[in-house]
Protein backbone atom coordinates (compact mmCIF):
# COMPACT_ATOMS: atom_id res chain seq x y z
CA UNK A 1 0.00 0.00 0.00
CA UNK A 2 2.79 2.43 0.97
CA UNK A 3 4.78 1.49 -2.14
CA UNK A 4 1.76 2.17 -4.31
CA UNK A 5 0.91 5.53 -2.72
CA UNK A 6 4.26 7.08 -1.85
CA UNK A 7 4.48 8.72 -5.28
CA UNK A 8 1.44 10.83 -4.36
CA UNK A 9 3.25 12.78 -1.61
CA UNK A 10 2.32 10.38 1.13
CA UNK A 11 4.02 8.59 3.96
CA UNK A 12 3.13 6.11 6.65
CA UNK A 13 4.52 6.58 10.15
CA UNK A 14 4.09 3.64 12.47
CA UNK A 15 4.62 3.96 16.20
CA UNK A 16 4.96 0.88 18.40
CA UNK A 17 3.63 1.64 21.88
CA UNK A 18 5.66 -1.00 23.70
CA UNK A 19 7.75 -1.44 26.82
CA UNK A 20 10.97 -1.73 24.82
CA UNK A 21 12.37 -1.59 21.31
CA UNK A 22 13.04 -5.31 21.66
CA UNK A 23 9.30 -6.03 21.97
CA UNK A 24 8.66 -4.23 18.69
CA UNK A 25 11.75 -5.47 16.82
CA UNK A 26 10.32 -8.77 15.50
CA UNK A 27 7.24 -6.98 14.12
CA UNK A 28 9.33 -4.35 12.40
CA UNK A 29 11.83 -6.92 11.12
CA UNK A 30 8.98 -8.94 9.59
CA UNK A 31 7.38 -5.92 7.91
CA UNK A 32 10.72 -4.47 6.69
CA UNK A 33 9.17 -1.03 6.31
CA UNK A 34 10.72 1.72 4.19
CA UNK A 35 8.74 4.40 6.04
CA UNK A 36 9.54 5.68 9.55
CA UNK A 37 8.84 2.95 12.07
CA UNK A 38 9.17 4.37 15.56
CA UNK A 39 9.17 3.14 19.15
CA UNK A 40 7.31 4.83 22.00
CA UNK A 41 8.12 3.27 25.38
CA UNK A 42 6.78 6.17 27.48
CA UNK A 43 3.39 6.63 25.77
CA UNK A 44 4.29 10.04 24.35
CA UNK A 45 1.93 9.46 21.43
CA UNK A 46 -0.88 8.07 23.60
CA UNK A 47 -0.71 11.20 25.76
CA UNK A 48 -0.61 13.66 22.83
CA UNK A 49 -3.37 11.97 20.81
CA UNK A 50 -5.50 10.41 23.56
CA UNK A 51 -4.85 6.92 22.23
CA UNK A 52 -6.63 4.34 24.39
CA UNK A 53 -6.13 1.18 22.36
CA UNK A 54 -4.27 -0.21 19.39
CA UNK A 55 -4.39 -0.17 16.52
CA UNK A 56 -5.31 3.50 16.29
CA UNK A 57 -4.88 5.40 13.03
CA UNK A 58 -5.13 9.07 12.10
CA UNK A 59 -4.91 10.88 8.79
CA UNK A 60 -2.91 14.12 8.67
CA UNK A 61 -2.92 16.39 5.63
CA UNK A 62 -0.04 18.24 3.96
CA UNK A 63 -0.41 21.15 6.41
CA UNK A 64 -0.21 18.84 9.40
CA UNK A 65 -3.93 19.06 10.15
CA UNK A 66 -5.91 16.13 11.53
CA UNK A 67 -8.39 15.18 8.82
CA UNK A 68 -9.40 11.82 10.26
CA UNK A 69 -9.35 11.56 14.05
CA UNK A 70 -8.54 8.43 16.05
CA UNK A 71 -10.02 5.47 14.23
CA UNK A 72 -9.54 1.72 14.27
CA UNK A 73 -8.16 0.09 11.13
CA UNK A 74 -6.18 -3.03 10.42
CA UNK A 75 -3.76 -3.65 7.59
CA UNK A 76 -5.04 -7.20 7.10
CA UNK A 77 -8.17 -9.22 7.87
CA UNK A 78 -6.37 -11.40 10.46
CA UNK A 79 -8.65 -10.15 13.24
CA UNK A 80 -11.77 -9.58 11.14
CA UNK A 81 -13.76 -12.33 12.86
CA UNK A 82 -13.10 -10.65 16.22
CA UNK A 83 -13.33 -7.01 15.24
CA UNK A 84 -15.85 -7.09 12.41
CA UNK A 85 -13.65 -4.53 10.64
CA UNK A 86 -12.57 -5.04 7.06
CA UNK A 87 -9.07 -3.90 6.17
CA UNK A 88 -10.14 -3.21 2.56
CA UNK A 89 -12.65 -0.56 3.57
CA UNK A 90 -10.08 1.68 5.24
CA UNK A 91 -7.52 1.01 2.51
CA UNK A 92 -9.95 2.04 -0.22
CA UNK A 93 -10.85 5.25 1.62
CA UNK A 94 -7.19 6.00 2.29
CA UNK A 95 -6.21 5.36 -1.33
CA UNK A 96 -8.95 7.68 -2.63
CA UNK A 97 -7.91 10.46 -0.23
CA UNK A 98 -4.19 10.17 -0.98
CA UNK A 99 -4.80 10.14 -4.73
CA UNK A 100 -7.00 13.21 -4.42
CA UNK A 101 -10.10 11.35 -5.62
CA UNK A 102 -11.97 12.00 -2.38
CA UNK A 103 -11.82 14.70 0.26
CA UNK A 104 -11.16 13.88 3.90
CA UNK A 105 -13.62 14.53 6.69
CA UNK A 106 -14.58 18.24 7.05
CA UNK A 107 -13.07 20.04 10.08
CA UNK A 108 -16.36 20.48 11.94
CA UNK A 109 -17.11 16.78 11.55
CA UNK A 110 -13.57 15.83 12.67
CA UNK A 111 -14.13 17.88 15.84
CA UNK A 112 -17.50 16.26 16.44
CA UNK A 113 -15.93 12.81 16.10
CA UNK A 114 -12.93 13.50 18.35
CA UNK A 115 -12.80 12.01 21.83
CA UNK A 116 -10.91 14.53 23.96
CA UNK A 117 -9.08 13.57 27.16
CA UNK A 118 -10.63 14.33 30.57
CA UNK A 119 -8.93 15.25 33.85
CA UNK A 120 -9.26 11.65 35.01
CA UNK A 121 -7.70 10.36 31.76
CA UNK A 122 -4.72 12.64 32.34
CA UNK A 123 -4.47 11.61 36.00
CA UNK A 124 -4.35 7.99 34.79
CA UNK A 125 -1.55 8.95 32.37
CA UNK A 126 0.39 10.57 35.22
CA UNK A 127 0.03 7.33 37.22
CA UNK A 128 1.23 5.44 34.14
CA UNK A 129 4.15 7.85 33.73
CA UNK A 130 5.20 7.31 37.33
CA UNK A 131 4.86 3.54 36.90
CA UNK A 132 6.93 3.57 33.72
CA UNK A 133 9.61 5.71 35.37
CA UNK A 134 9.83 3.26 38.28
CA UNK A 135 9.75 0.24 35.95
CA UNK A 136 12.75 1.42 33.92
CA UNK A 137 14.65 1.79 37.21
CA UNK A 138 13.94 -1.78 38.25
CA UNK A 139 11.25 -0.82 40.79
CA UNK A 140 8.86 -3.37 39.36
CA UNK A 141 6.60 -3.80 42.38
CA UNK A 142 6.13 -0.09 42.95
CA UNK A 143 5.56 0.35 39.20
CA UNK A 144 2.80 -2.25 39.26
CA UNK A 145 0.91 -0.33 41.95
CA UNK A 146 0.78 2.73 39.70
CA UNK A 147 -0.09 0.80 36.54
CA UNK A 148 -3.00 -0.79 38.39
CA UNK A 149 -4.11 2.58 39.75
CA UNK A 150 -3.93 4.08 36.24
CA UNK A 151 -6.13 1.29 34.90
CA UNK A 152 -8.68 1.80 37.69
CA UNK A 153 -8.88 5.51 36.86
CA UNK A 154 -9.31 4.92 33.12
CA UNK A 155 -10.89 1.50 32.64
CA UNK A 156 -11.48 2.22 28.94
CA UNK A 157 -7.76 2.84 28.36
CA UNK A 158 -6.33 -0.44 27.12
CA UNK A 159 -3.06 1.22 26.15
CA UNK A 160 -2.68 1.34 29.94
CA UNK A 161 -4.58 -1.75 31.08
CA UNK A 162 -3.33 -4.17 28.43
CA UNK A 163 -0.20 -2.30 27.33
CA UNK A 164 1.29 -2.47 30.84
CA UNK A 165 0.65 -6.21 31.23
CA UNK A 166 4.12 -7.14 29.93
CA UNK A 167 5.60 -4.82 32.60
CA UNK A 168 3.52 -6.53 35.27
CA UNK A 169 4.60 -10.03 34.26
CA UNK A 170 1.21 -10.76 32.72
CA UNK A 171 0.72 -12.32 29.28
CA UNK A 172 -1.24 -9.67 27.29
CA UNK A 173 -2.84 -12.45 25.21
CA UNK A 174 -3.43 -14.76 28.17
CA UNK A 175 -6.26 -15.60 30.57
CA UNK A 176 -6.01 -12.36 32.55
CA UNK A 177 -6.47 -10.34 29.37
CA UNK A 178 -9.41 -12.49 28.29
CA UNK A 179 -10.99 -12.11 31.71
CA UNK A 180 -10.57 -8.32 31.61
CA UNK A 181 -11.96 -8.15 28.08
CA UNK A 182 -14.88 -10.42 28.97
CA UNK A 183 -15.89 -8.27 31.95
CA UNK A 184 -15.58 -5.10 29.87
CA UNK A 185 -17.70 -6.38 27.01
CA UNK A 186 -20.25 -8.00 29.35
CA UNK A 187 -20.79 -4.57 30.96
CA UNK A 188 -21.86 -3.33 27.53
CA UNK A 189 -18.64 -1.55 26.54
CA UNK A 190 -16.91 -1.77 23.16
CA UNK A 191 -13.28 -2.89 23.05
CA UNK A 192 -12.68 -1.19 19.70
CA UNK A 193 -14.24 2.15 18.89
CA UNK A 194 -14.18 2.74 15.14
CA UNK A 195 -15.39 6.15 13.96
CA UNK A 196 -19.14 6.44 13.65
CA UNK A 197 -19.39 7.63 10.06
Amino acid at each position, binding site marked *: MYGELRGY*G*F*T*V*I*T*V*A*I*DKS*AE*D*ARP*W*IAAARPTH*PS*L*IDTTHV*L*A*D*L*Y*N*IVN*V*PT*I*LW*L*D*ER*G*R*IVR*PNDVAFGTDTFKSITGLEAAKHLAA*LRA*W*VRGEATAIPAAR*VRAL*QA*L*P*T*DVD*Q*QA*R*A*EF*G*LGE*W*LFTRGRTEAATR*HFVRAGELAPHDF*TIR*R*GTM*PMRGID*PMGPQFREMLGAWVKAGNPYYRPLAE
Partner: protein
Amino acid sequence: MAERKFTIVDGGRAVEVDEREGVVLAKRAETAGRPVAVDLDEGVAYLGVTARERAAALASLEAPDFRLPDLDGRLHSLSEHRGKKVLLVAYGSW
Protein backbone atom coordinates in the same frame (compact mmCIF):
# COMPACT_ATOMS: atom_id res chain seq x y z
CA MET B 1 21.04 13.49 59.42
CA ALA B 2 20.80 14.33 55.75
CA GLU B 3 17.29 14.59 54.42
CA ARG B 4 16.04 11.96 51.99
CA LYS B 5 16.14 12.83 48.32
CA PHE B 6 13.01 13.20 46.26
CA THR B 7 12.68 13.14 42.47
CA ILE B 8 10.29 15.30 40.48
CA VAL B 9 9.69 14.05 36.95
CA ASP B 10 8.25 16.81 34.78
CA GLY B 11 8.03 16.71 31.01
CA GLY B 12 10.36 13.73 30.85
CA ARG B 13 13.05 15.48 32.91
CA ALA B 14 13.92 14.38 36.42
CA VAL B 15 15.07 16.85 39.08
CA GLU B 16 16.37 15.78 42.49
CA VAL B 17 15.43 17.85 45.53
CA ASP B 18 15.14 17.32 49.28
CA GLU B 19 12.12 15.30 50.33
CA ARG B 20 10.30 18.14 52.06
CA GLU B 21 10.77 20.46 49.08
CA GLY B 22 9.70 17.72 46.67
CA VAL B 23 6.44 17.09 48.49
CA VAL B 24 5.73 20.83 48.51
CA LEU B 25 6.47 21.12 44.78
CA ALA B 26 4.20 18.18 43.95
CA LYS B 27 1.41 19.66 46.05
CA ARG B 28 1.85 23.03 44.38
CA ALA B 29 1.61 21.47 40.90
CA GLU B 30 -1.54 19.67 41.96
CA THR B 31 -3.07 22.90 43.27
CA ALA B 32 -2.23 24.51 39.93
CA GLY B 33 -4.35 21.84 38.25
CA ARG B 34 -1.64 19.53 36.97
CA PRO B 35 -2.24 15.77 37.13
CA VAL B 36 0.29 14.53 39.69
CA ALA B 37 1.13 10.96 40.67
CA VAL B 38 3.17 10.52 43.85
CA ASP B 39 4.96 7.57 45.45
CA LEU B 40 6.21 8.63 48.87
CA ASP B 41 7.89 5.26 49.58
CA GLU B 42 9.91 5.57 46.38
CA GLY B 43 10.39 9.31 46.81
CA VAL B 44 9.18 10.36 43.39
CA ALA B 45 6.41 12.48 41.88
CA TYR B 46 5.40 12.50 38.22
CA LEU B 47 3.81 15.67 36.82
CA GLY B 48 1.56 15.12 33.83
CA VAL B 49 -0.07 17.44 31.31
CA THR B 50 -3.56 18.82 31.90
CA ALA B 51 -6.58 17.61 29.98
CA ARG B 52 -7.29 21.24 29.09
CA GLU B 53 -3.94 21.61 27.31
CA ARG B 54 -4.17 18.26 25.50
CA ALA B 55 -7.82 18.76 24.52
CA ALA B 56 -7.19 22.29 23.20
CA ALA B 57 -4.31 21.04 21.06
CA LEU B 58 -6.38 18.22 19.56
CA ALA B 59 -9.45 20.39 19.01
CA SER B 60 -7.28 22.89 17.09
CA LEU B 61 -6.80 20.01 14.60
CA GLU B 62 -3.11 20.93 14.37
CA ALA B 63 -1.50 17.48 14.72
CA PRO B 64 0.69 17.58 17.85
CA ASP B 65 4.34 17.18 16.90
CA PHE B 66 6.46 14.45 18.47
CA ARG B 67 10.00 13.14 18.26
CA LEU B 68 10.56 9.41 18.69
CA PRO B 69 13.38 6.97 17.92
CA ASP B 70 13.43 4.15 15.39
CA LEU B 71 15.00 0.75 16.11
CA ASP B 72 18.47 2.19 15.50
CA GLY B 73 17.86 4.98 17.98
CA ARG B 74 17.60 7.62 15.24
CA LEU B 75 15.07 10.33 16.14
CA HIS B 76 12.24 11.25 13.76
CA SER B 77 9.80 14.15 14.06
CA LEU B 78 6.32 14.29 12.63
CA SER B 79 7.04 17.85 11.45
CA GLU B 80 9.76 16.54 9.08
CA HIS B 81 6.90 15.21 6.95
CA ARG B 82 5.09 18.51 6.51
CA GLY B 83 4.00 18.78 2.87
CA LYS B 84 3.00 15.12 2.73
CA LYS B 85 -0.18 13.34 3.64
CA VAL B 86 0.50 11.07 6.60
CA LEU B 87 -1.12 7.88 7.80
CA LEU B 88 -0.17 7.71 11.47
CA VAL B 89 -0.49 4.21 12.89
CA ALA B 90 -0.17 3.37 16.58
CA TYR B 91 0.18 -0.32 17.34
CA GLY B 92 1.70 -2.55 19.99
CA SER B 93 3.10 -6.06 20.27
CA TRP B 94 0.48 -6.64 22.97
